[in-house]
């Protein structure tokens, strides 16, 4: 019985992390119909920036509790710089091309950012352990968990609820929904679509970077993390249905629970299980669990 409790707790922690790394991806796809491969790079940039800013903060002898603010600041900075540069500098010339071509364009951005982060931060592993070690551990159900995991869970709930509220309750959210539903008609009604795209992409970039910044204290930040994370994020959003916020949450829970179950019960299939679920969902429901049916266009 206890083992199932551990699986559920592990699953919740992993699901929360997955939701944070995937939510920006699904937001950008929902609004702009771009499956952003570079989302993984934004995650990596967020993690790198967090080690730099956080490390600088600690080295200055500032109160270590402030390092949490540094993580968030790092994510916002990365998103505010990289988002507009990528969207205004490149993507806006690509709108109207096929979705697959846009995947290739963002894949090119992914390749460029891979090396850029190596040029800026080098190839050696970096770390920022303070925010993680500072909180100590927490006993739950007879097992000891790092309290920092709770921070990640809370952060993902805050991000999810905030996004859902903005989308459903605010004027900006309504505008966004209009653009998602019909871009041309919204433009005709006087919505500044290119501004909506810029803001969406920037917010998505901040969310991607936030995923990296919040993960940075728990891993060693090194080249290759972008490639690992983006396929996981793909799995999450594809399972839930591309472009759906609820879908991303559901996808995160499914992948998180499956992986937690595999880790405890059948460790050989841990990595395999995630993609097996992704393939299974794509086979049963080709457009994901929460997909909206689309008319076949001739």
């Amino acid at each position, binding site marked *: 019985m206890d083992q199932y409790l551990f699986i559920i707790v592990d699953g919740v922690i992993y699901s929360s992390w997955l939701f944070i790394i995937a939510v920006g991806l699904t937001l950008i796809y929902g609004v702009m119909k771009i499956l952003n491969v570079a989302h993984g790079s934004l995650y990596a940039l967020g993690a790198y920036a967090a080690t730099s800013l956080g490390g600088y903060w600690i080295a200055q002898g500032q109160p270590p509790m402030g390092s949490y603010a540094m993580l968030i600041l790092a994510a916002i900075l990365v998103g505010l710089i990289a988002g507009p540069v990528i969207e205004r500098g490149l993507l806006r010339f690509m709108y109207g091309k096929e979705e*697959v071509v846009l995947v*290739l364009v963002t894949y090119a951005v992914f390749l460029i950012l891979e090396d850029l982060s190596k040029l800026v931060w080098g190839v050696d592993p970096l770390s920022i352990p303070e925010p993680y070690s500072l909180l100590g551990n927490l006993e739950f159900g007879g097992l000891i968990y790092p309290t920092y995991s709770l921070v990640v869970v809370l952060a993902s709930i805050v991000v999810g609820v905030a996004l859902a509220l903005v989308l459903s309750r605010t004027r900006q959210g309504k505008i966004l929904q209009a653009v998602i539903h019909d871009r041309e008609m919204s433009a005709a009604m006087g919505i500044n679509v290119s501004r909506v795209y810029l803001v969406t992409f920037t917010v998505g970039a901040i969310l991607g970077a936030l995923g990296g910044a919040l993960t940075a204290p728990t891993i060693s930040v090194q080249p290759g993390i972008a490639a690992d994370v983006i396929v996981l994020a*793909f799995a999450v959003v594809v399972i839930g249905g591309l472009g759906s916020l609820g879908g991303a949450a559901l996808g995160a829970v499914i992948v998180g629970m499956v992986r937690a179950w595999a880790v405890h019960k059948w460790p050989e299939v841990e990595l395999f299980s995630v993609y097996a679920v992704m393939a299974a969902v794509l086979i049963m429901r080709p457009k994901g669990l929460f997909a909206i049916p689309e008319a076949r266009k001739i």
Partner: protein
Amino acid sequence: MFKDRTSQILLAALVILLVAGPFAPRWAMFLLNVSLSWGVVVLGMMLLMRTGLVSFGQGLYYCLGAYAAGVLHSKYAVSDIAIMLLASIATAGLVAAVLGLLLAKYRDIFFAMLSLAFSMILFGLLVRSSELGSTDGFGLSVSTFAGMALPEGWDRYAVFASAVVATFVSAWAIHRYLNSHLGRLAGAIRDNELRVEYMGASVRRVIHLNYVISAVLAGLGGGLVAITIGHVDPEMAFWTTSGEFVFIAILSGTGNVLAPFLGATIFETVRSYAYEILPNWWQIVLGVTMLLVIMFLPGGLWSIFVRGRKAT
């Protein structure tokens, strides 16, 4: 049979490479050997792209082909080039025939995502299988060709010659196929599959067939790389490997069967130098090149050669 220009170039390249092989320096032979093997994989990618499909999972068949050859060597003590390559082709072809039943229904990013998922499944399995060397993979070697022992010092040339012949046969076969009635349906499906159905052709069957052909080519390429490098590892199924195939296919263009080999040779040559001179700039070069090609040269490098002429 060899009346058109592409076939003649292929035939000439076959003869020149086979004759010049023994005199070429070892590094050049190796580089060309790997380039041709990758070219075979990209040739399959090109066929898919002509059909309007981009796969982010060709690494699946590339890796299967390589492991088929590797497992024959490590588990069954077979080190015959011909048998290994046949095993690569058969494994990739069989798996593709089954998965193709599913994938033939998918288009656009969903095709890309499902093929990605399949290749990541293989990656996940191989990483955890200690019997097959986990993340390190394992090594292999060759000693005979179709039962004939390879003379001392000629094993590298035998591998090279196999790659050259395999390249020639696949490129020429695909060239003929693309100009056949069935092959021409690929472009029609990309343009408008509903119209193709109205004309009485089965879109699913054509896509399935092209998918299997592309997988067989990827498997063959994987087998060739395995016997060339003498090592296989799970990274071959990771999505970034498939991404490199996509990159070369975009760079080359889908205009002609020669294009993938040109693209792969440029790619491998630049990579082997870039790794040494500017290791942290290589992917920036790739990314920028890819953007430039997408924006200004949608037909790939090949379209430079046919500028002014009517593209076929």
